[in-house]
């Protein structure tokens, strides 16, 4: 991949903390975009608000850094008004699942032809580490000082149920799989949702005994359970540990989609 073509070098240094997982996901996404043969002039990156949503600002294409939670509604307008544009949305777990939850459900239902890459760091990073709908039970954040007492939102399961054509989850450890999944998402007509579990050493790791960057990457690696293995365990009556999450491809289908170039 030629970085010069895609990155705004004049915007360096970037705002991401040392060891943040977002950079890996941006790299995987651009790798997939390039493998698709997409060009700068007809590719648009759109995002909401958060650390993850800063990604489009470092990319040389046209890009829309919008308001907190609303990226998908903006993207709906861009894609429907000009289906010739390839639209990719970067978002975070708070941006997508909390304030933007309703837009997420309806973008999946409409099955609008865009690809969404969600960097799920299980926390509100940009505002300094408050609990999000994806903060695991018991985890410490600045607004859950005694441990998170609400259940976690399974974003990929929601996307499947609401009607997305392609849904996959990987982590920042699984770069090859993640890149492949994003590419399949870009290639699939309709709504594609790729959830990338990422480390946030600053706002999450620090408070949850995962101080070193490698601690949190190891956490993601060891808590990711291949979907097929999870299903086998369930069939055989084995208990799947509550703190593990499935990775892999959850759905690939061909529901009628909106905004597909005819």
């Amino acid at each position, binding site marked *: 991949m030629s970085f010069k073509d895609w990155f705004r070098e004049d915007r360096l240094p970037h705002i991401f903390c040392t060891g943040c997982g977002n950079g890996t996901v941006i790299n995987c996404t651009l790798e997939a975009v390039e493998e698709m043969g997409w060009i700068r002039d007809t590719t648009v990156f*759109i995002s909401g608000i958060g650390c993850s949503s800063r990604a489009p600002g470092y990319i040389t294409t*046209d*890009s829309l850094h*919008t308001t907190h939670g609303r990226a998908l*509604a903006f993207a*709906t*307008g861009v894609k429907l008004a000009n289906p010739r544009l390839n639209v990719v949305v970067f978002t975070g777990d708070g941006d997508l699942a909390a304030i933007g939850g309703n837009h997420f459900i309806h973008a999946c239902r409409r099955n609008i032809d865009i690809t969404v890459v969600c960097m799920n760091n299980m926390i509100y990073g940009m505002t300094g580490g408050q609990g999000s709908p994806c903060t695991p039970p018991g985890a410490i954040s600045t607004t859950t000082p005694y441990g998170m007492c609400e259940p976690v939102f399974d974003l990929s399961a929601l996307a499947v149920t609401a009607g997305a054509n392609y849904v996959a989850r990987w982590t920042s450890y699984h770069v090859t799989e993640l890149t492949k999944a994003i590419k399949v998402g870009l290639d699939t007509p309709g709504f594609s949702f790729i959830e990338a579990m990422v480390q946030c050493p600053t706002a999450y790791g620090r408070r949850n005994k995962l101080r070193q960057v490698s601690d949190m990457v190891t956490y993601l690696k060891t808590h990711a359970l291949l979907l097929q293995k999870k299903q086998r365990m369930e069939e055989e009556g084995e208990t799947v540990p509550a703190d593990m999450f499935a990775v892999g491809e959850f759905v690939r289908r061909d529901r009628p989609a909106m905004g597909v170039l005819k």
Partner: protein
Amino acid sequence: MTKIEFMQGNTACAEAALAAGCRFFGGYPITPSTEIAEHMARRLPKMDGVFVQMEDEIGSIASVIGASWTGARAMTATSGPGFSLMMENIGYAVMTETPCVIVNIQRGGPSTGQPTMAAQGDMLQCRFGSHGDYGTIALCPASVQEMYDLTVKAFNLADRFRIPVFVMSDEVVGHMRERIEIPDTVTVVPRRPLEKGTLPFTAGADGVPGFPEFGKGYGVHVTGLTHDERGYPEATDPALHAALVERLVRKVEDARHEIADVTLTQPDAEIVFITYGPPTRTVRQVLHDNPEKAFGHLQLRIVWPFPEDVLGAFPHARAFIVPEMNFGQIAREIERHTCVPVKSVPKLGGELHTPDELLAVAEALR
């Protein structure tokens, strides 16, 4: 050749938008604006345009802003509760200088209020409703014909100044049926494209930058954060923020006399009515019924930016009477610009002022 029709205000608004080249409508149903969305839903797909019913008004205005960046003329229509929901993204359109048209068919508020009754209660909200400082344009039709003409004008002003423009109508004009003349073609002044080699947010002499449409190779970064002329976030430089916000205010405020759209009646009058929207009709009746009393009348078809200089067009005025279907929102703005005593005549509840009510106010001031 013009066509004569008998048409509802909301339909006239939708037809005017189509005539002005609007090809994207994102909306959410709400009384008393819904007929605009319904009309667009019927017409747009047959004109190679897009109609989308979004999940709420936050999404509606977001989709409109997104569509605008692809170069489309785009609009939404709503009423009080939906207008309140749109405020954050209206600020985003201001900050990113995104042209779009927002129609507010006003009803009685606060809150759900009076869904089927007219009001003018959102006149300050459209000026100041989103956080931060900015300039804005608001047009107020008093008839179905004006609804048509001002909606066309709204699109041209939005593209000219690169701002969200408000058509601040109300239930009375939105639902009234009247004879209108529809011209064969309307004047369309398109957006000025960004010249290659110019930074995307470098403004021209008029304070307005050229438009870098998505998909045309500009590679523009658009953000609601305070940004430099490249469009890059630069949120902690006090001077840069001050200069940007000052430009956003001034590009509109400094052009207020170019933008102004008023009708003056009887400039040498001593007692002068000032109106916008439906009270205009009542005042016309008062003037018509009492020619011997020589009342003056100033109709504002564009309320924001407020054209304060036109107040000077009534040099003998002893009193300005301002009937409004709110608690006196624009009366206060008028007071700010004149030494002539201002008599606010608020009317809440959804009914128009009657000619007798207004005549009595004028007689008491004689």
